[in-house]
């Protein structure tokens, strides 16, 4: 029974293992090192059995094989294995070195890694990137492995923050990443910082290393002024008594400091225009192209998936879907895409496009794929073309009208009427009327349009006010005019009845109180006297005037002409009356 279970496990393992895809990658523990300071090179082979370690040779570097480790895991019935070959790389001289692509043979196929770049600086620390401030309790450096690059080329950079071993430190605030000052570049997302310890000039430092990728976006000198990161530092006062001895009463002081790195400059070169392929979309790096198809034996109308893998080191953000050629007899549809990062920064990755295809007739091979990029190491454009994949197709040719890709079986049925080809309406030819993308409320015409009724409303209100004011003053004006005429008669006329009549009328007009506020019709003097509204000292004179007038006007008694003495008496009475009113 145990043997049976063991055999099944092995079979399951082998079955799942066979499905997993083989991949290979290489990485260096550091991208910058010093002369005679060894670093580690790891070559990882996934899902393949490789018996011998691959040979790695590079000029200027001493590379020695150090050991092999392997790991196998089964997750969700998917088995995967990783074999890691470790090498010790010791630089023997200063400069930039390239470790060429490493080849590994597995399962009858040859796999290649991307090439790696290592910068070696002099031990004395005088080269760019080597800290010169090692006497300070803390300092930082910006390590840029290249002095020149092309627009769009990814440059891995490191920001190293050194702290004396007696200091405690932590990024402040937590989770904050360094800020690189400068312009004309973009950076990738920072990785979580790593920490290590190293000795420098006889002192031990803790180093916090931030890694990211930098890309120049325009040609010219790219000046990286500095990179700054805030740290909360804790340090002790004075010296400890003995190394390793921790005094619980020791005084700590804390402070937040901005730690700045040195600057760097990179010459960003423009991509050459000569020899630029039509299919180039701005991809810069070093890539390989591989294609595969499933299934390889189909009926016409059946879907086939053409998988295109672009693998390498470069700006995967800029990769556009590769173009298909030799599509005669095939119906092609938009592919899906997937990116799998091969390193922490995502500089090295595999981008996979899956093209859904339908064979409309019998053809011998699948469409071929073309992909162009610029190789900054070779300084030229490269166009990769896939070799045609043979396929076996059976069945009759499909009708011209396209079937829905989601329902390919419908097209293979002869009884099904093909769907009508969708098309668009024709263009408009009459001269178009101008229009604006500005919202209406932001258009000047709208506010001019509002000003017209607003002005009209304002004018209307103004007119109403003027009219009301004029209407309010009209009776007063009439009375004033009448009063003036009456006074003129009293002053100039010799006709006695006329003057007496005018005098009585004036008395009546002036008898009204609050003349300005409220217009009331004048009341007869008789009524005023009977109501006691005439002052007592004037009552006799007013009565005499009334009687004289009535006798003169209605009784025709007395002279027809007025004497001056009489006129002056009337005037005095009128003035006194007015003063009293």
């Amino acid at each position, binding site marked *: 029974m145990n043997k049976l279970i063991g055999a099944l496990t092995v079979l399951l393992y082998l079955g799942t293992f066979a499905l997993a895809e083989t991949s290979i990658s290489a990485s260096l523990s550091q991208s910058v090192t010093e002369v005679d300071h060894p670093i580690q090179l790891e070559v990882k082979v996934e899902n393949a059995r490789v018996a011998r370690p691959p040979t790695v040779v590079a000029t200027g570097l001493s590379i020695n094989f150090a050991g092999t480790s392997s790991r196998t895991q089964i997750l969700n019935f998917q088995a995967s294995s990783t074999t890691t070959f470790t090498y010790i790389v010791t630089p023997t001289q200063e400069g930039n070195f390239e470790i060429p692509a490493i080849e590994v043979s597995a399962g009858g196929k040859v796999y290649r890694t991307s090439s790696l770049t290592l910068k070696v600086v002099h031990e004395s620390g005088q080269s760019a990137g080597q800290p010169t401030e090692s006497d300070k309790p803390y300092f930082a450096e910006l390590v840029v492995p290249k002095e020149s690059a092309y627009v769009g080329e990814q440059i891995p950079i490191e920001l190293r923050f050194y702290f004396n071993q007696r200091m405690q430190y932590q990024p402040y605030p937590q989770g904050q990443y360094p800020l690189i000052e400068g312009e004309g570049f973009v950076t990738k997302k920072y990785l979580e910082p790593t920490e290590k310890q190293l000795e420098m000039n006889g002192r031990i430092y803790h180093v916090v290393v931030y890694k990211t990728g930098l890309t120049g976006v325009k040609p010219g000198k790219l000046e990286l002024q500095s990179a700054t990161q805030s740290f909360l530092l804790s340090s002790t006062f004075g010296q400890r008594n003995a190394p390793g001895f921790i005094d619980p009463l020791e005084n700590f002081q804390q402070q937040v400091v901005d730690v700045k790195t040195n600057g760097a400059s990179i010459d960003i070169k423009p991509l050459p225009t000569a020899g630029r392929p039509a299919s180039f979309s701005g991809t810069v790096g070093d890539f390989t192209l591989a294609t595969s198809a499933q299934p390889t034996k189909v009926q016409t109308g059946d879907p086939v998936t053409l998988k295109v893998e672009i693998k390498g080191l470069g700006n995967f*953000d800029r990769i556009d879907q590769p173009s298909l050629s030799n599509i005669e007899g095939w119906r092609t549809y938009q592919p899906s895409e997937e990116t799998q990062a091969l390193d922490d920064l995502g500089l090295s990755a595999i981008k996979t496009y899956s093209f859904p295809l339908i064979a409309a007739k019998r053809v011998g091979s699948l469409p071929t794929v073309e992909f162009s990029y610029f190789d900054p190491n070779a300084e030229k454009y490269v166009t990769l073309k896939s070799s045609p994949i043979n396929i076996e197709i059976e069945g009759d040719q499909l009708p011209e009208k396209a079937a829905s890709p989601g329902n390919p079986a419908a097209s293979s049925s002869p009884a099904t009427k093909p769907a009508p080809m969708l098309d*668009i309406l024709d*263009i408009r030819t009459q001269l178009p009327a101008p229009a604006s993308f500005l919202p209406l409320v932001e258009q000047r015409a709208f506010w001019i349009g509002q000003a017209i009724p607003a002005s009209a409303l304002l004018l209307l209100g103004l007119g109403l006010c003027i009219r009301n004011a004029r209407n309010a003053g009209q009776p007063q004006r009439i009375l004033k005019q009448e009063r003036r005429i009456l006074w003129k008669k009293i002053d100039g006329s010799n006709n006695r009845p006329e003057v007496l009549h005018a005098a009585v009328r004036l008395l009546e007009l002036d008898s009204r109180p609050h003349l300005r506020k409220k217009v009331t019709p004048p009341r007869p003097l008789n009524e005023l006297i009977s109501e006691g509204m005439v002052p007592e000292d004037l009552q006799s004179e007013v009565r005499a005037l009334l009687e004289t007038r009535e006798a003169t006007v209605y009784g025709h008694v007395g002279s027809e002409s007025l004497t001056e003495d009489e006129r002056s008496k009337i005037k005095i009475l009128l003035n006194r009356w007015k003063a009293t009113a």
Partner: protein
Amino acid sequence: MIWTRCLLVALGYFAWTVPLAFGGATWEAANTAYQHGKYEEAKAAYLHLADTGPYSADLFYNLGNVWFKLGDPGRAILNYQRALLLNPGLVEAGSNLHTVLKIVGNDNQPTFREQIGAYADYFPLMASIAFWIFAFSIYPAWLKHGRLTLFCRRLCIVAGLIFLGTAALFVWIGSGAKDPNRALVVDSAVDLKYGPAVSARAVESMQLGEELQLISERGDWTFCRASSGNLGWILTRKTERLIP
């Protein structure tokens, strides 16, 4: 009389300058090129008109047709949307947009807010008209000893209600379809990602012609809100703003 003459002169000037400003010759040449199947030539001429001359719904409609004929449904959708922005009543643009969306398999239905957002310009116009009717009718309607008419009072109430309703809609819709941060996905095979990196995990796959609300940009990437409400990063060159 003098005002009539001035108006006639102004109308004559307008009638003469508008076709000149639009570039009548280029327009004709572009239309001819399209009708003869020279789509690249027509595209160049229409783009020249869009770059230099005043915008028009017909221009973007024709440009949408050219992009469709050249096999770029993403930009065809974009230009039909632009034509509908300038003239929501352009039925040909609506029909072609529907067709292209059907071809690319985008079956996203616009929300009620998006539907009335196309008419966003009508709300301030209606609100202003209602406001002025209200303002002009309130005096005669509320005058104590004036000519109080039932008609004026009713007109005042109706205009006031319309003003409040349309003003509220305007506040809700804002710039509507003419929001300068609206953009469309114009390239296929694009994901909304959690971070501005190709290696970042995808939030969702975006369809051709899907609408986005752009929030900020960083390098080649734009932080945006998808029509589903999800926030994420998308490659800037895979999108294009609706307002050019």
